[in-house]
């Protein structure tokens, strides 16, 4: 620790960084300004390096892999984007379907987690009751168990819900009804092999974060408002719906969006559960374009796909940046 401190110390002394951001102002000496600019530009270069690399690749029309380093586009060609939009993978699935699947999955999981979490977060934030600590630890259990750890039982559980068309034309909904003639019937729908089922499974891992993030924010809302409402004769439910929820809307939005991003790139459960190309998501497609499966994929197409997957999330994140960071820190900074 000491050596680390000393090196940091010397860095601070060397740069003579004014940590207060107060004095100095316009009379920051020129040599120091230039030195700091140099460092800032070096950091900027390192930040931009992979971004420029992938953007340049995506605008290239060459299907061969890059033979030398190019960080600025020599040409602006949308061939790769067009190819990705036309036929993203070898599988029979269109880009619009991939986008829709990803969008519905992240949206659904984000919304479901939010709706279920908000009342729980309120209970944990505002009430004192028996078993509070125990229940709270229980809610956080999925944080300790990565999605893959619960995948087998969830697979078996969801696999039991199937809709089948029997030989006599009737429809059986397992596990509630089975075909009367005892035949297995033709499989129409398997909850496990559907986006809906995967969404249910993903909600399990989305809940704890939503509860934690909302509780942290609710803790910061002054109780006086609720007390005043109670004096005015509002019962607990009215207080919750009419006072607390409206105040928490910014944080609800942030929690939803963080859930959305988290599951925009969900890979484990989708890859384990889904077998039909029509249900594939953008994240799964991106995996198909890299690593061991990628030998046949031109890199310009991969790059275009990477940009497409990243862009929607990046844009919303930048737009909501202030709220997200504020939300994350109010959720955590305490005591």
């Amino acid at each position, binding site marked *: 620790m000491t050596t680390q401190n000393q090196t940091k110390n010397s860095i601070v002394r060397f740069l003579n960084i004014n940590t207060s951001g107060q004095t100095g102002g316009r009379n920051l000496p020129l040599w120091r300004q230039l030195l700091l600019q140099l460092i800032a530009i070096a950091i900027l270069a390192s930040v931009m390096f*992979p*971004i420029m690399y992938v953007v340049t690749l995506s605008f290239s029309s060459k299907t061969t892999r*890059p033979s030398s380093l190019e960080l600025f586009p020599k040409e602006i060609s949308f061939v790769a984007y067009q190819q990705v939009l036309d036929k993203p993978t070898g599988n029979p699935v269109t880009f619009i379907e991939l986008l829709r699947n990803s969008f519905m999955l992240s949206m659904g999981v984000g919304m479901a987690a939010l709706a279920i979490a908000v009342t729980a977060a309120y209970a944990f934030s505002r009430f004192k009751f028996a078993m509070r600590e125990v229940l709270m630890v229980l809610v956080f259990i999925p944080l300790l168990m990565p999605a893959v750890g619960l995948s087998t039982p969830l697979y078996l559980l969801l696999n039991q819900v199937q809709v089948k068309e029997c030989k006599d034309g009737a429809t059986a909904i397992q596990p509630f009804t089975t075909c009367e003639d005892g035949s297995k019937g033709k499989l129409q729908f398997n909850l496990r092999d559907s986006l809906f089922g995967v969404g249910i499974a993903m909600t399990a891992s989305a809940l704890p974060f939503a509860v934690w993030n909302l509780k942290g924010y609710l803790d910061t809302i002054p109780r006086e408002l609720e007390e005043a409402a109670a004096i005015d004769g509002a019962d607990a439910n009215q207080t*919750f719906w009419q006072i607390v929820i409206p105040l928490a809307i910014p944080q609800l939005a942030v929690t939803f969006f963080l859930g959305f991003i988290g599951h925009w*790139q969900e890979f484990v459960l989708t890859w384990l559960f889904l077998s039909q190309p029509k249900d594939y998501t953008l994240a799964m497609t991106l995996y198909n374009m*890299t690593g061991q499966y990628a030998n046949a994929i031109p890199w310009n197409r991969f790059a275009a796909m990477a940009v497409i997957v990243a862009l929607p999330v*990046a844009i919303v994140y930048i737009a909501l940046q202030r709220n997200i960071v504020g939300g994350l*820190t109010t959720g955590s900074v305490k005591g």
Partner: protein
Amino acid sequence: MAVAKSSVGKSKRKNAVLPYLYLLPAFLIMGVITFYPLIYQVIISFTNFESKHLLLGLKSPELEFIGIKNYIDIFTAALPVENFNFFRVLEFNFWWALSNVMLHVPAGVLIAVLLNTEGLWFKRLYRAAYILPVVVPPLVVATVWTNIFDERYGAMNQLLTTLSMTFFGGTEPVYIRWFEDVTPPIPGFLPGAPLTLAYYAMMIANFWLGWPFMSVVATGALQSIPKDLYEAASIDGATGSQQFWGITVPLLRPAMIPAAVYGFTLSFNLFNFVFFMTGGGPARSTELLVTFAYNLVRNLRWYGVAAAFAVIIFGVALVVFLITNRITRATQNYQEA
């Protein structure tokens, strides 16, 4: 709404029931999709559950209870899997999370302090650009960096080639097999778990991804430090570094510790990133607990062993959670705060 109708006399009892009503939806759902699978997982961790049992589950006639054999196999590396040693993976997993946080937090703080310097030109431009790694989904980051570290066409080897040819008079193109080489470049750096080049490649990529978030948190905290503190300190003759260690660091600590804990738990289970970059290779040297669990389920299909492994991960994560919870006191409630 039965609760709303209850009379004043019952209000005490009503208040006792109310919190549980608010918790009901969450626990109903979690009962089905979290606790039931969890218990199921514990049960099959004591069996020889395999693909052939998937159809009937626990009702399979030939499903055998084999006691703690799965656990013993995992701990004693008796699984017929090449290059697997539980304790090496565990050690690597901890080191991976720790080494990431140890780099991200100081870098994030220093860069936040740099950008907080009054009078620095283009401050807004830098702030806007430095946030970019945070907004790109880690999955995309991992795939892009995988290609950057490609041994034949990757940008990293090309960059190193350019640098070596321009500055060091090199004539041969640099050809580093980032994801293939199994000899650790610094032998004995982490006793018991050799760190291959793939680890360093992942560290570079994850550093790119990780410090900006820490910097964002630090910037927020820096801006909430009252400026009179620094004025008073300079009147008293404190130097820049004295102010940094005496004011900035202590006041950043409440914000940075939870951020560091968050970063630690995030890195600890960074499945998407590691899986997309190295898949745990080469020779399982960059395998995390989660990526190995995934391999057990997806590729090897030993569900019983995988279940035992998941229970072990749970135990490890529980220890981590209890320690970090101590640090952040996340479960502290409103009144106690």
